[in-house]
């Protein structure tokens, strides 16, 4: 039993935790963009993939991994700003905002997906693990990079929470998320806040992309695969809820990690979707309330 805990369950839960933290980073961007702009961003998965590929390119041109981790989110900022200004904003004020932005970002994701395939080819690329090895605690082997990912991710999640709930910028975001007319009438530059938030969400997706690259490798369909889980997390946690994204992200990835020890891993996705269906049936608004809505 102890062996099972040490060699099977604990490492599996740790893997799930590292994966969960990365999913939360992705889901946070998705949920903040939805909470503020009311836009379901279907290209979020591709922003994640672009972040990973940007990391691959930087590493291949000799940039140190840690520098690349800092650079990728910065490079993603203009991608987010341009997407919001040139595309999302064009249809934002139409009565069909939900459908139009959904189709628009879905189309964009297809273009990005094919673009990545054309440029980098269909085969997976895998950056070297920047911190190989690990440490052993109470007989459990802790891979160093995954531990790093957990700590860095947790720090970023805490920073995002602090920005949204403890700064005046965050108050502007929450106010504009609830009532953009009123926020604007009080002097909040709503249009700039929209762009900045969209870019911020995009940067978080890109960051998740490069951080996960050494573990899961980099391939053109990676966006598709991860976005489905990120969407599940956002729906279960509550569309537009930061607390919901964090809790549902960590919980669902643990469910997936533990379930894959008992049943075939290919059946873990249906379990997650089953949870999502149950949440939609009994609590369609998700576990927690939307950003800025009290």
């Amino acid at each position, binding site marked *: 039993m102890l062996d099972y805990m040490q060699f099977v369950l604990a490492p599996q839960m740790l893997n799930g935790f590292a994966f969960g933290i990365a999913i939360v980073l992705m889901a946070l961007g998705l949920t903040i963009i939805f909470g503020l702009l009311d836009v379901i961003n279907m290209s979020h998965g591709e922003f994640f993939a672009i972040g990973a590929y940007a990391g691959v390119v930087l590493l291949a041109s000799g940039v140190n991994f840690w520098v690349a981790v800092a650079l990728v989110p910065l490079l993603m900022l203009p991608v987010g700003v341009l997407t919001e200004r040139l595309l999302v904003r064009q249809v934002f004020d139409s009565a069909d905002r939900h459908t139009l932005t959904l189709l628009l970002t879905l189309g964009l994701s297809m273009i990005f997906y094919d673009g990545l395939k054309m440029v980098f080819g269909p085969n997976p690329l895998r950056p070297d693990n920047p911190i190989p090895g690990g440490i052993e605690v109470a007989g459990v082997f802790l891979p160093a990079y995954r531990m790093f990912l957990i700590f860095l991710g947790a720090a970023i999640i805490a920073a995002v929470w602090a920005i949204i709930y403890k700064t005046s910028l965050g108050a502007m975001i*929450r106010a504009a998320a*609830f009532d953009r007319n009123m926020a604007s009438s*009080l*002097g909040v530059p*709503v249009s700039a806040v929209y762009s900045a938030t969209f870019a911020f969400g995009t940067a978080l997706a890109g960051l998740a992309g490069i951080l996960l690259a050494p573990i899961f490798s980099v391939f053109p369909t990676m966006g598709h695969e991860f976005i489905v889980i990120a969407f599940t997390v956002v729906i279960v946690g509550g569309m537009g809820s930061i607390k919901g994204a964090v809790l549902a992200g960590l919980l669902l990835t643990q469910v997936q990690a533990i379930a894959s020890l008992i049943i075939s891993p290919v059946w873990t996705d249906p379990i997650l979707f089953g949870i999502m269906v149950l949440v939609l049936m009994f609590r369609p608004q998700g576990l927690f309330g939307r*950003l*800025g809505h009290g």
Partner: protein
Amino acid sequence: MLEIRDLHSHYGFSHVLQGVNLTLRPGECVGLFGRNGVGKTTTMRAIAGWIKQISGSITYNGQEIGGLASNAICRLGIGFVPEDRRIFPGLTVEENLKLGLMQTAGRSGAQEAAALERAYDLFPRLKQRYRQMGTTLSGGEQQMLAIARVLVGDQKLLLIDEPTEGLAPQIVDEIFAIMRKLKSEGHAILLVEQNVKRALDITDRICAMERGRIILEGDGNSQADRDALMKAIAV
């Protein structure tokens, strides 16, 4: 100060404002009265920049503001206290107030702190509740916060839409006392209010609206004009 000329607006197929003409001078309180749906709130929203489908002209101190973004309009010194208060439920009382500081650019931290302090002096109840979320306030407290939030911006013209709707009589008294004080301090006020009799205590000029137009304008202190107003809006 504020000049509205031949203002029209459309909501889909309905022609809500059909040529509104209205003038507001510095320090003056103008009451805009009429039945529901005649375009009072739409007029307020058009001035505040919430409605973009407008034609005609709205000038403030000589500058055309029709079509400007709401955040640009508030920077000129126009504060909007809309119907339903529009308090941000996910922000604390203090965060709601601090957001109001953004209406005026270029003030020092000390000036902003003084503006907050003035608002708390005017509404001590808000100070007691400064860490509470907006959503936990009573209707009267929300109205006080909505007014205070605009005042911290040091606005010269206040657009106040239905401030006493749904409030207890004692709170209504408080709100009118505050508006009288603001007027005496030199604020110009454009007031939409269903409680016409109470509103007449503070209005210098009165306007009656009907079907998207101002059909009557008069002196708020003249009994004849007051009677004509009552007849025009049939209350």
